[in-house]
């Protein structure tokens, strides 16, 4: 009789060895490596984004002197204020108009740049990106001088043609136009570069096939270019919508919300109420009001992106 013990596969392995093996397997997984590599960023985001977000949620539930819990009291108060609804309206006008124009200009310019011969294209790409790479606080100061109420360079130029002076920042409609214009100027290059990247990834064969089928330029754009760029357009729009809704510097520097509050958007009014008016909880509530709007937009846009991804 053989006295040897035959080890059954998968049975009776010591627990510590099993643990070591499974840890080893976990560490060998690509997803674990990816997680560990992104961990510093996750920690940073937790510290700089998640914590302040929850802290502002907490602040929004306090009374003005920050000593009493008031639940949704601040939001109820805001909903009764006319100025708040004016700010909601203006934020929507500002963000939607600016994003539409940025997308449109970005799309057109991307096509122009795409059609420039490869040799000279880099120069153009670099030059067109300049507005986007200058810190907006600085570039808006230059715009402020161009729009200056008393010494506007635009008005000086327009005066040669017998036009003006235009109250760029003194009249509600012109002031809205001015802040949207600067935002479009600043943001259009981002759309341009994203769309350019998307255009470059559209296979030439599709255009050749469309040409053989007799498609004109509009049909090529409508049936080939746009469907191929749909995901990029959706994600870029969402990203820009979030950033534009949360804009602060352009409006703050150019008009500070005036005249008569007609250019205030959420962030600038939150600052006015929270910091300048020493009502931090109300300021936090104003800035948090953006969250549900943007969350709904994000859900719709990302769901669409997902759907198209599955179709592909």
């Amino acid at each position, binding site marked *: 009789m053989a006295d040897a013990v035959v080890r059954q596969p998968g049975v009776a392995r010591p627990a510590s060895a099993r643990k070591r093996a499974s840890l080893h397997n976990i560490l060998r997984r690509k997803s674990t490596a990816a997680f560990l590599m992104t961990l510093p960023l996750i920690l940073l985001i937790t510290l700089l984004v998640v914590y302040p977000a929850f802290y502002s949620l907490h602040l929004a539930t306090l*009374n*003005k*002197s920050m*000593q009493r819990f008031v639940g949704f009291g601040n939001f109820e*108060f805001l909903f*009764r*204020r*006319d*100025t708040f609804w004016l700010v909601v309206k203006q934020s929507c006008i500002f963000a939607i108009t600016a994003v539409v124009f940025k997308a449109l200009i970005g799309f057109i310019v991307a096509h122009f740049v795409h059609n420039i011969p490869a040799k000279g294209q880099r120069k153009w790409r670099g030059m067109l990106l300049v507005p986007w790479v200058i810190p907006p606080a600085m570039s808006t100061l230059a715009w402020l001088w161009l729009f200056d*109420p*008393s*010494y506007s360079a635009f008005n000086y130029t327009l005066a040669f043609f017998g036009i003006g*002076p235009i*109250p*760029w*920042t*003194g*009249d509600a409609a012109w*002031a809205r136009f001015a802040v949207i214009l600067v935002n479009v100027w600043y943001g259009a290059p981002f759309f341009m570069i994203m769309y350019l990247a998307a255009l470059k990834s559209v296979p030439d064969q599709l255009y050749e096939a469309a040409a053989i089928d007799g498609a004109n330029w509009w049909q090529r754009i409508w049936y080939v270019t746009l469907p191929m760029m749909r995901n990029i357009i959706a994600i870029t729009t969402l990203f820009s919508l979030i950033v534009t809704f949360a804009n602060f510097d352009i409006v703050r520097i150019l*008009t*500070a*919300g*005036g*005249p*008569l*509050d007609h250019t205030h958007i959420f962030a600038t009014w939150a*600052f*006015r*109420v*929270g*910091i*300048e*008016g*020493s*009502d*931090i909880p*109300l300021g936090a509530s104003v800035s948090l009001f953006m969250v549900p709007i943007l969350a709904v937009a994000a859900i719709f846009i990302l769901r669409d992106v997902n759907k198209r991804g599955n179709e592909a």
Partner: protein
Amino acid sequence: MSRKTLTRRQFVAATAMSSAALITAPYVRGAYAAGKISIGFWDHWVPGANKASTELVNEWAAKEKVEVSIDYITSQGKKIELTIAAEAAAKSGHDVLAMPTWWPHAHAELLEPVNDIMEPIIKQNGDVNGTVKYLGRAGNKWLAVPATIGSQIKGPCSRIDLLKKFANIDIQEMYPAGGQPKADNWNMETFLKAAEACQKGGVPFGIGLGETTDSTDTAGAIFQSFGAELVNAKGDLTVKTDAVRQALEFYKKLIAVLPPDVAAWDDASNNKWLISGKGALIMNPPSAWAVAKRDAPQIAEQCWTHGMPSGPKGRYAPYLPYFWGTWSFSKNKEAAKSLLTHLSQPSSIEKFVAASGGYDLPAYANMTTLKTWQEEGPPKGTLYHYPNPHNHQTLSIAASPAPPKIAQQIYAQATLTKMCLRYAQGEKMEATLAWAEGECEGFMRS
């Protein structure tokens, strides 16, 4: 290899010396025996003014054996307000911090009372005006010490030549250097007539109607001279009163003769208006004149800082005091109070005023006739009436006498200038008043 051995004698000697050092250490007065203190001062725009503060602090620190660190915090971008809000939330920060106008009241619960130092300072320097008491005191508790640095009156700064030429007003005769004002006829009516004349002459008065402090401060003083209050001292709404209606009527006439873009003016616009030579009068502390002295000396030579016109209820001048406060969570309150006492001594105040070229204003009655204001020029005596040496006008802040936490909202939201603009742009009087009443109701939340 040698090995050093410790003898019994050496061991006993070392132990005795170490014990003696440990026991006596707390009683030795070293360089920083009284601990550390951190200070947040307003970063002065006048070159060299910060140096005077540093010297005064260092002088005190050397005497009191305190280690000091000073941060000069700019008011650009509301950095001071942001710092105050952050320190109040974190319950940690500077031991002494500069606080503009409304902020001592906004954080009254977190500030260390300074009655113990304010009473002797007032006894020494003279009483403080009503606005300093209104902003710096809650009941009988002094929340902060009035700071000389940054405090200012935003009265008129006029062009001598242009007022004489277009409005037939000799402003130097009305406000003579070194003498009592002879300004009985300087009232809202003559002011408006002068504004109309200067506008016709192509040099309109430069009074902003934007949402920044300069615009609000002027509107506040004019409203007060008509007795117009949006909320009274008890906290009752008083928007729909004849006094408010009169003030709005006056502003409507005034706006008609101001530059067309005043709705978009910020705190720099009026300065530029004066320095560029486009206007005959602005409402500002002497900063515009000081810049003109450097950049446009021919204009500076024609500038004269003087008092406000009087209205039916008195003569009010826009006044913005700064304060120095100490948090109740400060780690070195005693040193902070000692420093604040030092900075409020007449010799320190004189140094601040001189270093700022007369811009900074002490809050105390006995300190309004310093030689800096008498000597600054050109023209000599241009700043003589800036500190209100003859008390011929009441120094006030817009939105007072409403309870400060309500007044701060009226001030920050620029409700007064918005009312003036709405009415001047064609809105019906009652609609403007109803809008303002709604706004003020909202400001009353606690």
